[in-house]
């Protein structure tokens, strides 16, 4: 018994003393769903370490916002070589810190619904925001954002707060992209149908949606892929809206103060190879950033294919976000 638990104890106590970062280690700041054992992190680590003859360490922070926060706080003394897990909502703020270094990677292989040319950020996956619904509770979901906004009160949905969560901000931008200046009044119309606004996606999905509190929740168009492929159930589907869906792109970037720029560059290039991307679809439950061909799981063919991709330039989002949040707050607080 003791002998069995010894390695375990060592595994716990070792990290507390191991301190030195040898010069062949790439440190990547990321968020939990990437680095989790079910996430793409472990597979990516193994594949990259084989290729580079180095070691890859993840530092796991609570969310994309925290990665950025940590980077800002650490400034020039940061340990990070690469940040992975920022998205279209946070990347402009990250750009303004001046702590990120340009890459020299050809982005031709990218397979995104929008044209992507950026000197700092390399996309590693993408997806659409969408409302996921329970087919058993809601056989006939709304067919458009407009229909949802005008739905009778007995249709209740769960959303996340744009002040604290990424999909929450996504919906705010989605409404803005569709309704422009009329977004405020549309939010007012929608407010009757909102059961509640949770702090994070996890709170809403786990505590409320999976408990059957509401038949519909703001999530990603790719969420059903997991339920279909792993849970083997078709019960949860994404509702396709006529106006189109808002795009989220998750990105990585090299850190300017890094002393491992060559390795960091190699990693960014590695992101756009199948060895990295094959872990994305079912482990991050998002679309891969390059065309994976046959390797893309079959269930992805059964996901909704929005007619239009809605996307507001991140620079404009960064500039207007505060005003849009105020507009939302004013619409929602009577």
């Amino acid at each position, binding site marked *: 018994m003791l002998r069995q638990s010894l390695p375990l104890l060592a595994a716990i106590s070792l990290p507390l003393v191991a301190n030195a970062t040898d010069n062949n280690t790439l440190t990547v700041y990321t968020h939990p769903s990437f680095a989790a*054992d079910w996430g793409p992190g472990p597979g990516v680590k193994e594949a990259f370490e084989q290729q580079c003859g180095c070691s890859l360490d993840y530092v796991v922070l609570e969310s994309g916002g925290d990665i950025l926060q940590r980077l800002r706080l650490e400034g020039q003394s940061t340990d990070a070589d690469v940040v992975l897990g920022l998205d279209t909502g946070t990347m402009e703020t990250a750009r303004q810190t001046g702590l990120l270094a340009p890459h020299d990677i050809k982005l031709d292989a990218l397979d995104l619904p929008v044209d992507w040319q950026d000197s700092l950020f390399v996309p590693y996956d993408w997806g659409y925001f969408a409302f996921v619904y329970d087919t058993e509770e809601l056989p006939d979901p709304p067919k458009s954002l407009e229909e949802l906004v005008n739905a009778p009160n007995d249709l209740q949905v769960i959303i996340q707060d744009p002040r604290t969560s990424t999909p929450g901000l996504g919906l705010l931008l989605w409404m803005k992209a569709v309704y422009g200046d009329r977004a405020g009044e549309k939010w007012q119309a929608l407010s009757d149908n909102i059961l509640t606004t949770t702090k994070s996606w*996890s709170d809403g999905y786990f505590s409320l949606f999976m408990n059957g*509190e509401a038949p519909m929740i703001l999530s990603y168009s790719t969420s059903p892929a997991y339920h279909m492929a792993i849970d083997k159930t078709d019960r949860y589907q994404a509702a396709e809206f006529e106006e189109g869906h808002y795009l989220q792109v998750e990105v990585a970037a090299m850190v300017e103060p890094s002393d491992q720029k060559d390795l960091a560059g190699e990693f960014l290039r590695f992101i756009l190879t199948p060895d990295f991307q094959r872990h994305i679809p079912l482990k991050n439950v998002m679309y891969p950033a390059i065309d994976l061909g046959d390797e893309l799981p079959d269930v992805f063919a059964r996901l909704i294919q929005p007619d239009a991709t809605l996307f507001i330039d991140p620079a404009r989002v960064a500039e207007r976000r505060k005003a849009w949040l105020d507009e939302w707050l004013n619409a929602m607080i009577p």
Partner: protein
Amino acid sequence: MRHSPFGYTQAPFSHPAWQIGPGLTIACGLIALTVTGVAALLWQAHLPEVSELWRNRYLNNVIRFTVWQATVSTALSLLLGLFIALALVRQPRFPGRRLLLRVMELSLVLPTIVAVSGLVAVYGRHGWLTAIVEQWTTVRWNLYGLNGIVLAHVFFNAPLAGRILLQALESVPAPRRRIASQLGLKGRWLWRTLDWPAVRRVLPGVAALVFTLCFTSFAIVMTLGGGPASTTLEVAIYQSLRFEFDFGRAALLAVVQLLICGALWFLMVRRSLSANLSPAREFPESIPRPDSQGVRRLQDVALLLCFSLFLLLPLAAVLFRGLPGLATVAINGGQPLNEMTEATLRSFAIALPAGAFSVFSGLLVLSMSSRGGGHLSRLSSVATAVPLMVPPIVLGTALFLLLRPSLGNSYDGLALVALINGVMALPFVTQLMRGPLNNLDKSTVRQADQLGLRGWYRWRWLHWPRLKRPLALAMAYGTGLSLGDFGVIALFGTPGQPTIPVLLYQQLGSYRMDLAAGTALWLVCLLLLVFAAFSLPGYRRNHRNLAGNVFKALAEGRHA
């Protein structure tokens, strides 16, 4: 050891510096940490526009709503807690009393996401209870809004209040209880002679504690609040810091929060100290109360049953939901089981030191307050409450700014996490230990002074035997709070190795809903285990005391 002219033995650590020094250091450290924390944020940012506070309609609403929901939640939690404590005092032989006490202790340390999931399953739109109520009555219950916020806050805090009030009620000296029993006092007079004097000593402290908890509540208010109209100050702080990187505004709001809670705490503490004069000897014997019979007994039992259901149903929901996932892990074993085991060990490796640290530093601070005068005592009360008033994200960011140069890498963070968890548990821990530590009666103190039982010796012979039970409970709270912590550990960044709550969030992030439900259940089991384990030593002692007290009652009766 020094010998005086009259040959007395100097006790170790009995120099006044030892009585006050360490506690004062910790108390000042806590306050300094807060001040430097807020200052560090301000230093990183421009000075905020203070007038924004009253000009901005949104902020105005936020502050008003925060105060309002906290007031309602506190009032209801205290009221329910008081009724429960009184019923428990009246019915010492209520079957399942011990279990109820454990569950009451547990509810406070439940991680929000677990508790909310359980509450929703029972009281939600499609909850068990809602279904029953709506089928049999015409009542239409809506969880989302102030209803849900208050319900959840009462779920978390009424048991805490009840637990502390019960401790106070049980400390009423036996002679006084005997007299009340003999005179057959009932109703208002029993309340005025026995219960109110006991409750009055702790009520202000409990009220301040519960109010602060509700005031700073975050995820609950958002999830059950229904929409952005239900926003606490803490949300606004989080938003400024995490999304807008507006350190100045975050600091300003943090100061507002500190001022409101701090002022309240200070007022409460002043009152509770002026009332804290009646010494209490420990007489845990059970003396039948005139009001514990008949209809009253039925009422009490009914109340206790309802309260048990109120606490147990959500836990039962967590159990039902998590059982399949946990069973799968246990039966299939392999990778998930290993992870669960490792995460469990890792969680305990953080939580046990955190609990020990918080109990230890709590003792130091409290012993300072018992030796020193009123100022030191007030300082200790407010300082230990500070960790509750400072938003963890502000504290975390500030600590990060302060400690960054000395932090080797994120692995060192784990020790820091234990430390911060310990600090966060201080308000609860000190609340539990304050009474037993400071309520030595006069004759005991005089004896001890004359015999030179000071410093270490006083601790060894006077405090330790009396404190074992509250200390164990405090240790359980400290450990439990750290065990369920997600906020602090996520703030400091963890290496790929998760603790149980981090594992839970990782599973959620990867859509492993069944597994996550299993992990949530496992976490509840661990918390229950912690409270059960730490209540064991006290239980045995209690039994012996009970036997001893029967004799004592007989002996005292002889010459009474």
